[in-house]
């Protein structure tokens, strides 16, 4: 799940409800669809009709994002549904939930791919394809095919309280400095960010593809530093609260979060770390059982357009289409600029992810 995208921490019963729903849906089973390249529409400019079912993170299908698309396609019936993670989306799609377009995040895409729930795209049907950032990134292309059109990103750097810290912060390693004992936080809502950050601090340049030895080294490093951290943050509001209440003065986090903190008059600064900036990348793909391919491509083109991207930019995300930059307000431009991610390290699904999860559990449970 993406910081800045995920809802507040689920209520007490949320896991149970999610469990029962996903189990019930998974129990229903579902038919497999096509995994061939989804053919691009012959006339990408003509309005779509029929029904389009969109399954995405909540902020990708807000009225602000979808209403202009509906106006462009008055004869199209749009149905939207939201999820909190690609694992949840995969379980529901595998269980028979019907959708034409699904939002895919590179670090979470594996369950969708392994179950053949998405089909490759024909990039000739995506008008702005060549201009989009991350269009050639690891994960966007799988076995030679393009599985998603990147639409937004979230650089994950360092957030520091500039009033409490009077020296220059330049790297993830600063978070681990002894001077911040008990005053530092680390993202802890899932295994990938804290382990990737720790790996970069340990000098591992390609954290997503760590081997077992490197992972063990990182795991040990995290355990050694466990008491250094005041807390692990699990949502945007959690992180904001930790800074606001003076519990922490430094943490990993993304630029959108720092922007929102500044808007709340918190004296913070976001820093792109020297080790390289981790970044989540999300976009839209077409499901293997999609019925309305024309409308699916139309929606993807709308979401990748400068206009729609400008809306994303104003919501604190990095856009993937540079053509949106002139449409974004001066205040939001620095945060939204895709060129800030030229050397970013995209967060992709690690080959040893099960072991990452295990390492993170050990980190949290060890006494």
């Amino acid at each position, binding site marked *: 799940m993406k910081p800045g995208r995920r809802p*507040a*921490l*689920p*209520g*007490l019963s949320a*896991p149970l409800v*999610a*469990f*029962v729903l*996903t*189990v*019930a849906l*998974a*129990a229903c089973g579902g038919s497999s669809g096509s995994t061939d390249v989804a053919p691009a529409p012959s006339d990408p400019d003509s309005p779509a009709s029929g029904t389009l079912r969109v399954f995405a993170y909540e902020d990708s299908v807000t009225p602000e994002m979808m209403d202009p698309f509906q106006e462009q396609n008055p004869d199209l019936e749009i149905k939207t549904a939201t999820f*909190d*993670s690609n*694992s*949840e989306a*995969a*379980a529901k799609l*595998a269980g028979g939930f019907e959708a034409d377009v699904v939002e895919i995040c590179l670090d979470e895409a*594996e*369950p969708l791919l*392994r*179950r053949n729930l998405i089909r490759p795209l024909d990039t000739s049907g995506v008008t702005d394809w060549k201009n989009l950032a991350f269009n050639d990134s690891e994960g966007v292309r799988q076995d030679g095919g393009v599985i998603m059109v990147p639409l937004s990103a979230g650089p994950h750097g360092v957030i520091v309280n500039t009033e409490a810290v009077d020296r220059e912060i330049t790297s993830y390693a600063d978070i681990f400095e002894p001077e911040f004992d*008990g005053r530092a936080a680390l993202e*802890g*809502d*899932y*295994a990938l960010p804290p382990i990737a950050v720790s790996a970069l601090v340990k000098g591992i340049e390609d954290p997503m593809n760590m081997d077992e030895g490197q992972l063990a080294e990182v795991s040990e490093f995290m355990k050694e530093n*466990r*008491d250094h*951290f*005041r*807390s*692990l943050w*699990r949502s945007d509001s*959690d992180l904001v*609260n930790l800074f606001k*209440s*003076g*519990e922490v003065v430094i943490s990993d986090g993304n630029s959108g979060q720092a922007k929102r903190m500044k808007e709340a008059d918190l004296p913070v600064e976001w820093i792109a770390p020297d080790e390289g900036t981790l970044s989540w990348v999300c976009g839209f793909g077409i499901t293997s059982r999609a019925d309305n391919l024309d409308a699916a491509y139309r929606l993807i083109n709308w979401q990748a357009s400068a206009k729609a991207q400008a809306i994303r930019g104003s919501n604190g995300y990095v856009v993937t289409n540079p053509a949106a930059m002139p449409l974004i307000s001066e205040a939001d431009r620095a945060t939204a600029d895709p060129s800030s991610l030229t050397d970013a390290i995209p967060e992709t699904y690690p080959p040893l992810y*099960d072991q990452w*999860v*295990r390492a993170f*559990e*050990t*980190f*949290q*449970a*060890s*006494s």
Partner: protein
Amino acid sequence: MGVPMADLPTVTGERPGRLSRLLRPLAFMSLPTAVLVLLFLAPMGILVYFSFQFGDLTGSTGFTLTNFTDILSDPLYREIALTTFQIATIAMIAQLIVGIPLAYVLAYKAGRFELPLLLALVLADELNPMVRIYAWRMLLGREGLINEALMSIGLIDVPIDALLFNKFSVIVVLSTSYLTYTVIPIYASMKAVDAGLFEAARDMGAGWFTTFRRVLLPLIAPGIFIALLLVYVPLFTDFAAPTLVGGTTGYMLGNVVSDLVLENGNLNAGAAMSFLMLLAAGLFSLVAYQLSRIKQGAK
């Protein structure tokens, strides 16, 4: 004065047949039973079914016991279970220490304030759990009310960090989160106890502790049993408190299930873990029931 038989009103109509007498209660029971089966037993059945299935990202499934053997043989899960047991047990004991005197005051000493106090206790539980936990963070935090108060009266010079983001704060939050469910059943069982018994015990020379141990405790044992069922078992599955106030040290079994299902997408392992916790809860309930019977002097 007797009434002649002939003057008694006669019951009209025939006596219902044996079959009708049997079917009528069944008819009354059918709807609640159907609801119970549909909303409670069916999900439970699905949970048990999935706990015996293997599943991977490709979607293939089949029967297996490895979900259970993996969990039971894993030292990490044993460590987490031990942490959970410690936290839940201390929180439960703390609630009984606070809850029994509170129930006593409500039942025997509150007088005309009994109902308002009871209402206040219930209303306190209506507060959204997230809000309640964040309120605790404001109280226990580095710049929280407790630290501020202690510093303002000169008791401490620097804030006490140990109040928040550790097992202690998890225990504090859990203890208060379920207090209503601890007090109400104990209060209800106390209401059924004749207060004259305490007077009799005093007349026979018993002190307050002996009266509590020999008279009150055995009589409220069923209430304590209900409180344990309502509170101790859910304490093992709670994950909100450890997540929000546990810092890096409060990882509990509830968090494991949550992570297995929501983060790892491993429904089978999550179901197996839940099933094992359910079995443990059942076992615990049996033991608590037997103990409450012993306290009462089982008939």
